[in-house]
């Protein structure tokens, strides 16, 4: 004790420390203090455990898929406040090694602030907070500091999954058990989820090369993860390779892919994807890897020296059956008839529901109801009875649309189309050439008027770009909620913005064909309600019609 005091006194009087050093130290202490409360120590019983990080006040936390892979529907989570919380599995992304769990029992959890991970630079200070070697039995997380060693790194899949694309490489110690924990910047903001490290002959311990899934990738998948669905990653349906002159060119392409139908061909040079320049094969894999299956994103190519802008829809990497198998255990199985779910602990029974294709269907209902509430808010400002929309076409001529509970019709200069609402829609992709404009409008009205729960099989699909044509991957990516409805023989996805307005509808009358794509533009300034200013309809990249609505026609028979 005397020796300790002596040393302290010595430092106090003997060393002149540059104020810059002291400030840096104080800043680091502050950053760690800021980040630590959101750190989660995950204990998954016999299957081990890992780390996590809280993202929302109501307890949604990110972790790695491989941390919860064998844990079943429930894990136990500890926070630095010294308390243990029951947590339930919400959603998984096996390919991207992400998962979301929800901690139960509070609505005021401490959360991490997410930063723009594309701004991270090599040489930046960073620190990892987690539960290495499951040391956090006292629930106090471990902190390891370092610098960013590399950005936009590509790490090949381990087996068929756990591909780390566009990841952040750090020399902060990432050890077994750190998986799923947060990587923070010098200000204590979340820039990634630690999940992988290079191990070699020194054994499974840190050797100065750890990898974190970028926060911006997490953003893209968060909607899907919160939907409880088994999330999948994206493929263009094409392979790329480096040409002799260094260009990245299409070396193989599936003719069944959307990219092929949009015009992508062998030897086309890839210039950019989702707003990110592509100069190497890895850069292509990096941007593809941060995008969920099903998103529609811009693809810029160059052919014969001429630049072309395409809008492509990304396919899933895995079939639903394969994804369910990757999800592990029996997560994808239907519950046995009449049987209880003996493996679901009592603590999470009310927030867990098994269903094929889902990690936890309960949260899909929760999210669908949330979107439904937004749609319901808009419904009050819309006509109670039939919806009548009139106006002119951008290409000339006039149109009239009438949507009622029983029938729907559209008058165009080219003719009139009518369908009965209780018909099968897949036989009526009306008007001809639209791919299904009329059924899409019917579906829109039904979702708003009846609510998603009443329309066929409607699930919360996740999130997707509000404006696919101008989408650019990054922290400021503008995403909207997406509902997916299987109804009357068609499948449709509807983008719904935060105010409850439907901003786009894609409707497929056959699973392998091109959907009818509606893009709804809403009047600026009008908080909610009314009718859109215009509806743009296209199919297979071919514009069908742009409908400019008369403002006065918005309300025919007000409630």
């Amino acid at each position, binding site marked *: 004790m005397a020796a300790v*005091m*002596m*040393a302290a*006194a*010595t*430092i*106090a*009087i*003997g*060393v*002149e*420390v*540059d104020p*810059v*050093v002291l400030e*840096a130290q104080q800043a680091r202490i502050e950053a760690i203090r800021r980040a630590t409360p959101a750190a989660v120590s995950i204990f998954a019983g016999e299957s081990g455990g890992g780390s996590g990080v809280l993202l929302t006040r109501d307890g949604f936390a990110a972790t790695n898929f491989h941390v919860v892979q064998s844990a079943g529907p429930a894990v136990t989570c500890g926070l630095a406040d010294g308390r243990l919380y029951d947590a339930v599995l919400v959603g998984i992304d096996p390919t991207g090694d992400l998962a979301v769990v929800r901690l139960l029992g509070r609505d005021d959890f401490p959360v991490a602030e997410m930063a723009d991970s594309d701004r991270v*630079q*090599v*040489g*930046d200070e960073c620190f990892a907070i987690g539960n290495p070697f499951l040391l956090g039995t006292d629930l106090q997380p471990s902190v390891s500091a*370092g*610098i*960013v*060693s*590399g950005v*936009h*790194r590509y*790490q090949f899949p381990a087996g068929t999954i756990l591909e780390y694309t566009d990841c952040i*490489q750090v*020399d902060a110690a990432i050890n077994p058990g750190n998986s799923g924990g947060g990587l923070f910047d010098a200000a204590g903001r979340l820039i990634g989820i630690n999940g992988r490290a*290079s191990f*070699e*002959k*020194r054994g499974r311990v*840190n*050797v*100065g*090369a750890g990898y974190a899934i970028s926060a911006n990738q997490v953003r893209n998948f968060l909607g899907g993860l919160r939907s409880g669905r088994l999330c999948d990653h994206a493929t263009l349906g094409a392979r790329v390779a*480096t040409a002799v002159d*260094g260009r990245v060119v299409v070396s193989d392409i599936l003719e069944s892919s959307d990219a092929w139908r949009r015009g992508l061909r062998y030897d086309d040079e890839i210039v950019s994807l989702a707003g990110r320049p592509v*100069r*190497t094969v*890895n850069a292509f894999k990096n941007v593809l890897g941060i995008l969920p299956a099903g998103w529609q994103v811009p693809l810029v190519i160059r052919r014969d020296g001429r630049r072309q802008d395409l809008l492509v829809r990304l396919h899933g990497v895995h079939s639903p059956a394969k994804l369910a198998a990757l999800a592990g255990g029996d997560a994808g199985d239907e519950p046995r008839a009449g049987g209880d779910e003996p493996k679901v602990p009592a603590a999470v029974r009310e927030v867990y529901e098994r269903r094929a294709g889902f990690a936890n269907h309960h949260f899909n209902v929760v999210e669908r109801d949330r979107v439904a509430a937004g749609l319901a808010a808009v419904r009050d400002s819309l006509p109670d009875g039939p919806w009548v929309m009139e106006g002119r076409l951008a290409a000339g001529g006039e149109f009239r649309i009438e949507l009622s509970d029983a029938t729907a019709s559209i008058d165009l200069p080219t003719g009139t189309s009518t369908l009965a609402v209780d018909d099968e829609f897949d036989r009526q992709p009306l008007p001809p050439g639209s791919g299904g404009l009329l059924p899409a409008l019917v579906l829109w009205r039904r979702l708003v008027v009846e609510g998603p729960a009443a329309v066929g099989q409607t699930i919360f699909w996740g999130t997707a770009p509000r404006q696919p044509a101008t989408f650019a991957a990054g922290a400021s990516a503008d995403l909207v909620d997406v509902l997916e409805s299987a109804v009357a023989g068609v499948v449709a996805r509807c983008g719904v913005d935060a105010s409850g307005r439907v901003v786009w509808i894609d409707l497929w009358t056959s699973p392998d064909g091109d959907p009818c794509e509606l893009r709804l533009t809403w009047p600026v300034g009008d908080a909610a309600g009314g009718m859109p200013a215009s509806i743009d309809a296209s199919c297979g990249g071919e514009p069908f019609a742009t409908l400019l609505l008369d403002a006065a026609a918005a309300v025919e028979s007000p409630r």
Partner: protein
Amino acid sequence: MIAKMPLCAAAIVALLAVRIGSAADAPSPQLVAATAARSVVKIYGAGGVRGLEAYQSGIILSPDGRIATVMSTVLDSEGIDCVLDDGRRFEATLVGVDLRRELAVLSIDATDLPAAVPAEERAAAGTRVLAVSNLFGVAVGDERASVQRGVIATVVPLEARRGAADAPYTGTVYVLDFTTNNPGSPGGAVVDSRGRLLGMIGKELRSSAGGIWLNYALPMDEVLAGCEAIAAGGGSPPLVAAAPPFDLGLLGIVLVPDLLDRTPPFVEAVLPGSAATRAGLASDDLLIAVGGRAVGSRTAAERAVGAIPAGDPVQLSVIRDGTVVDCDLGPRPAAAERSTPQEAAP
């Protein structure tokens, strides 16, 4: 409290009365990292099997394409490729090697390259450094080399071994307090907080004393001295040095003469009284695995046996009359214990 301080503390005060940190006018670590990485190249050559990577790092020493790296089996290739920080790929010529320092100098046909600026003096223990290298081959093409941060822990002579052999270099090294000597890292740069090149990350070696993997770098004065020796023609071809220090003869095994590209490792003869005889090896056995790892040629077999550390068990698998026979030859003797002299051979 200060008044009550014992007298002996005064001496400590004097020792500690230094100014810690003078970072105010130093360039940002981001800038230092980016600048240092421009002078580091990714080198690709021979290898690709487990424990023998086909890639390493190098440092650009002159704008006209002189590159320093470590001497290794990666360079034992007809085509050595160097990929610059900007993604440009060049085929390199091996100018020469320094066997003692295990250095090599390569040359690429380029001009106006961003050469590293060596520090003029040796650094002292406690110096904060960045290590920039082709760590684990993570970065490819124009992706920037990996950057790690740490401190020079001490500056001491190297006492190390690789496999069974003592490392030939016993001069001074910077011992680093962070894990720098990983696959792909050897040949990488260690720079100070101003970006001055202090040293080159050395080959993956274990401490002679404890067997632990070392994290170290060759000081720049040694690197430059080695490069000058090579330029002056002091080097010698790497194949001489690559000969394994421990051979099958020590176990009493004579393989068929190495006449083909990939001579199958048939046993020609087994020396009487040797470990091989005791283990039941016989002539005409075909050696297929060493320590459970397949060997497809005489060269591979010699290399695999040569890599077994002294004292580790020697386990050979052979095919005899169409069946696999495992032979345990006991612990590997040290090179000095050539218990079965060659002259005893028939």
